[in-house]
């Protein structure tokens, strides 16, 4: 397949469906993605799209290093000093160059925590004698220590490594409180190399010990130690298992695609965590992206170290994300690990509800207002002291528990007018009518809320359950796949179907939240139809997963593909129709959402 077939800039070609494999391959190349697939909707309206590019931390790291090199080309002070200066100036190259030319060099260096003489580079890592005591952990020498040789504040290597790891920005200050110097990448590299080498030596030593142990007969202590090691490892595994399940439940809102790239990601992350220097550069990348939050966003998924780079819009009308959102567009992006999230509000995929609706919905669900709705719907206030009263049986002759006022439950009038007659005769009373009307309206809005909330909840719970259920199934399918000797690609349809199902559930879920805020109209009726259409497809596929015994999954491939494709088409249509209605302001919101 030639690269030109994946030309993203030509819309027609992108419009052909892109499978997950292809997406994966594409994310590795320098391709630009769009927040939605087609420039033109089925009805021929042209929509604005946001351009973005999923990038990984290493890519940004490379760019930053190149940037530092470029700046150093002008300053000529060495890349390490330059890196500290750029971090200190928060990547404001202009300001740095200006200060560099106007300020006295010594002053600038002092202000930015750079030593004026950094030629003494020997002996950063040194073994300190017994007179040494680490000021952090108070352990005494002889011990390996690390310190900048030009300020000579030394701490033991363990403490220093932990200190650097804990750093949140790329600027690592000498731990001494009176010292203002920064540890540069060059010195960190030495610490990192030492740390790595030590870890390797430790591993090697352990391996040797193991080999020695294998040689002769084991002593009872060795057997005990070995047993304990195995026992603790297996209990670790047991502990780890449910934790993983929990995690998958929490990740429910994210794309299923994650699962099979997880391995790669973990390996990469492990390496990054292991090597101090790459951990440091990740902190630098984070600092840079936070500073440039308009362009770069860190994926909000737990432990995901991917970024999204904003690449503008394919229209001249819209020039910023804020404007885009104000037009009721929803910029959903997908990171290299397959997590889908909103570029504007940084929450998980919430199309077709707009960011404002999501905010309001979450607030509504969390607010006490709905509790008070229940109170108004199920209780009546004592006409005298206004304490809420719930009638839990008995006759209509009420006596308030607070103020002992006696009244009629039906008309809320004074009981004395009812004499000893337990049937209310003052039903047409003006006062009573007003009370009832008040009650009616609150009941209607409560019913409406509960209706949509239930639907939202049903899908949220289903989504969670589906993820758990399907995750278990997937491992079974892997087994089957191995037994039946079908290739990974052959069984890939299964993962793709799961992926589609979960994605659609999220869409459905949020569409209900959106519906709650829409005024009844013809357009809303149409949206509801689209919604129920999508819902039917979702249920059909969900059912198929449920009824198909695992052994038959491969055989049923065709059915799965048909259903999944129907769902996919329905989903795309649904998203498009909702977008059209929102963007063209064809539907009205009941209350001012902003």
């Amino acid at each position: 397949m030639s690269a030109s077939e994946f030309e993203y800039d030509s819309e027609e070609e992108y419009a052909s469906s892109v499978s997950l494999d292809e997406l994966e391959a594409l994310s590795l190349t320098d391709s630009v993605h769009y927040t939605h697939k087609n420039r033109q909707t089925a009805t021929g309206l042209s929509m604005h799209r946001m351009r973005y590019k999923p990038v990984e931390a290493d890519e940004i790291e490379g760019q930053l290093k190149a940037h530092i090199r470029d700046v150093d080309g002008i300053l000529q002070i060495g890349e390490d000093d330059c890196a500290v200066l750029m971090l200190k100036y928060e990547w404001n190259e202009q300001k740095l160059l200006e200060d560099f030319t106007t300020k006295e060099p010594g002053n600038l260096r002092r202000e930015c925590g750079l030593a004026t003489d950094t030629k003494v580079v020997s002996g950063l890592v040194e073994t300190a004698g017994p007179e040494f005591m680490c000021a952090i952990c108070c352990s005494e020498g002889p011990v390996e220590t690390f310190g900048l040789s030009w300020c000579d504040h030394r701490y033991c290597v363990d403490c220093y490594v932990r200190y650097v790891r804990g750093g949140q920005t790329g600027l690592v200050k000498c731990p001494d409180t009176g010292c203002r110097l920064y540890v540069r990448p060059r010195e960190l590299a030495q610490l990192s190399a030492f740390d790595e080498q030590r870890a390797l030596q430790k591993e090697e030593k352990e391996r040797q010990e193991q080999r020695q142990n294998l040689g002769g007969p084991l002593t009872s202590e060795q057997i005990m130690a070995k047993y304990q090691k195995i026992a603790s490892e297996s209990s670790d595994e047991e502990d780890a298992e449910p934790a993983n399940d929990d995690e998958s439940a929490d990740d429910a809102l994210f794309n299923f695609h994650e699962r099979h790239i997880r391995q790669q990601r973990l390996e990469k992350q492990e390496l990054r965590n292991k090597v101090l220097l790459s951990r440091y550069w990740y902190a630098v990348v984070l600092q840079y992206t936070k500073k440039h939050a308009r362009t770069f966003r860190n994926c909000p998924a737990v432990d995901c170290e991917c970024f999204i780079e904003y690449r503008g819009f394919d229209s001249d009308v819209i020039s910023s994300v804020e404007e885009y959102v104000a037009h009721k567009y929803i910029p959903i992006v997908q990171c290299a690990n397959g997590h889908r999230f909103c570029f504007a509000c940084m929450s998980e995929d919430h199309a077709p509800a707009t960011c404002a609706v999501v905010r309001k919905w979450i607030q509504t669900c969390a607010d006490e207002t709905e509790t008070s709705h229940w109170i108004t719907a199920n209780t009546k206030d004592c006409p005298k002291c206004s304490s809420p009263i719930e009638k839990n049986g008995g006759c209509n002759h009420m006596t308030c528990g607070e103020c002992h006022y006696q009244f009629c439950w039906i008309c809320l009038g004074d009981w004395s007018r009812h004499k000893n007659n337990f049937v209310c005769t003052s039903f047409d009373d003006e006062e009573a009518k007003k009370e009832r009307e008040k009650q009616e309206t609150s009941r209607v809005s409560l019913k409406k809320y509960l209706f949509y909330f239930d639907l939202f909840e049903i899908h949220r719970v289903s989504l969670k359950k589906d993820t758990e259920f399907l995750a278990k199934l997937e491992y079974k399918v892997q087994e089957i796949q191995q037994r039946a000797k079908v290739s990974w690609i052959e069984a890939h349809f299964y993962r793709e179907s799961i992926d589609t199902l979960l994605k659609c559930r999220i869409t459905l879920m949020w569409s209900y939240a959106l519906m709650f805020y829409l005024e009844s109209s013809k357009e809303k009726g149409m949206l509801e139809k689209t919604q129920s259409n999508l819902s039917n497809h979702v249920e059909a596929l969900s059912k198929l997963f449920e009824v198909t015994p695992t052994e038959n999954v491969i055989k049923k491939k065709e059915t799965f593909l048909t259903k999944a494709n129907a769902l996919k088409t329905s989903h795309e249509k649904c998203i498009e129709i909702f977008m059209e209605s929102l963007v063209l302001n064809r539907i009205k919101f009941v209350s001012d959402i902003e």
Partner: protein
Amino acid sequence: MSLPKRIIRVMPHEDNLRYFNVTIDGPSGSPYEGGKFKLELFLPDDYPMLAPKVRFLTKIYHPNIDRLGRICLDVLKANWSPALQVRTILLSIQALLSSPNPDDPLANEVAEEWKSNEQNAIKTAREWTERFAQ
């Protein structure tokens, strides 16, 4: 020969050795003079990579200490360094009592009073010391 006057006392808690009961004497020359201020100090799991958590238990009228006893002090936040110790932190807190900084306030009302009517603020601080910190 009398023992030198102890100014800061720190006792670890019996049940939890990460938890300390602290008493700081109000520094002489400040409106807190003569007061004994109780604080609690806790060393979090990541100590010394993270700063200890310190809080006043005694009510105090101070622009950098709020009603819940939380302290606004740079070395407890951004300027924490693992090379600092409990001793240095407590000395810094004592120094904060000697020199309140109403320009970087935590208790806004107190800080405002401190800036607009320092005499009055100092008077209130002295009264509070007598009322709560004996």
